[in-house]
């Protein structure tokens, strides 16, 4: 099959790639662009480990065709730290031990960042609602929610 040429911006950098029609954005990111932060937990939209943003909207990249990224702005977990400094969400996840195996973490960080950009002061319930699509088999969620709320407070303080 003939490949399609796709031009996107990924984490602020203009990026071009060739992909087959049946490749998902997740496969493109991981196997073609070697951005292995987003994980494949299920491949069927159930787990959220593959979360990225596409034109500012959180999506499950395992359910987006790579070709649909033409002209789009994409952000992944690799774009969160700036100049070697961790994003406050990443720092709080470390400080508050909000991860164990870490497979869900990149997706949760991206989803939480998308939430805080829309709503800098979410209630605990809003955090839980917003992260509904992100499964974690290890932590029991409590520390994840606490870390997101702490990072939100940090970011509000910094603003």
């Amino acid at each position, binding site marked *: 099959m003939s490949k399609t040429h796709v031009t996107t911006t990924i984490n602020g950098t203009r990026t071009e790639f060739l992909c087959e*029609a049946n490749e998902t954005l997740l496969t493109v990111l991981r196997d073609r662009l070697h951005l292995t932060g987003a994980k494949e937990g299920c491949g*069927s939209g159930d787990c959220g480990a593959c979360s990225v943003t596409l034109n500012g*909207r959180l999506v499950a990249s395992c359910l*987006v065709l790579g070709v649909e990224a033409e002209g789009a702005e994409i952000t992944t977990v690799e774009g969160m730290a700036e100049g070697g400094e961790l994003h406050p969400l990443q720092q709080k996840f470390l400080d508050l031990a909000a991860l164990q195996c870490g497979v869900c973490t990149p997706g949760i960080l991206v989803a939480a960042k998308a939430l805080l950009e829309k709503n800098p002061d979410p209630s605990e319930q809003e955090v839980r609602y917003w992260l509904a699509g992100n499964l974690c088999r290890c932590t029991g969620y409590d520390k994840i929610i606490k870390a997101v709320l702490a990072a939100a407070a940090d970011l509000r303080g910094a603003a």
Partner: protein
Amino acid sequence: MSAPLPEFTLLHPHDVDAALAAAKAHPEARFVAGGTDLLVNMRHGIGAPDTLISLSRIKALRRISATDDGLFIGAGVTLAELARHPVLRHYEAIRDAACVVAGPSHRNAATLGGNLCLDTRCLYYNQSDWWRHSNGYCLKYRGEICHVAPRGKRCRAAFCGDMAPALMVHGARIELATADGTRHLPLEAFYLEDGAAHLVLAPDEIVTGVYLPPNDADSARSAYTKIRIRQAIDFPLAGVALACDPVAEGLRFRLAFTGTNARPVLVDLPEALDSGANDATRDDYFNGLEKLVQRSVSPQRTTTTQPHYRRLAVAAMARRLAVGLAAGSAAGSAAG
């Protein structure tokens, strides 16, 4: 790792006419909108269309507009947009339903058209290819029998979309187009009671959107609720939409259900609730409503949750919504 998607050619028409011409030229093609249902099924080896016609670049399908007699919502509008759109404030059931489809990331991609055309679901169908192969497949796809009702001739997979019942209680009409013309149907006429062929949609026909009659009277109210296995993100085991309209005799209720049959089921309650009714009469009325709901739905063994439970639950949810809306509407008229 899950199975890769089968190979296909992907087309990106920029307008509806081009999409319809492509569908006519490629009889085996499927439309893909948000992909959150179709791609999951394709990964499970359900269907291997040679061509996918993506609707993502058709701006005309993403329109929400006021019309002379109500509202038009394009098939390409995402559920996230619907959930927060101010024009839906008078259509509470539709907004409620949009807020409880899947999770936030799905709603950003999921479209209204894809939700209305959602494939039916079943314990024996929404499984990987090797699972279904080991089980001899089933009537819905590649197999001979329905494992839910082995002696029957019909597939019993259930329609589980959340949006259809909410739109139905608001009197929605669906607009369908082919290269040869356009037709409009009441939304309930879009569905059939056959899990393997539950839509009247032709292969080269597209859903362009839905029309809603005006609903600006402050007192006309509606709501949608559902039960699901994972409370945070899941298809409905059963869902109920209810709208109540003040009429001369009192309050009239219209109900619609999902997750209980191969199609969403619409029920117009024959009698209105008398606004002057005392507590005992009201109770009788709601008992009658609950019984009617139980008789109107036919949940099957399509989920891990027993049909009898889903029948009782859907009736109890309907009653709860009706009692709540009746109380709200009484409070509203007293305050007014």
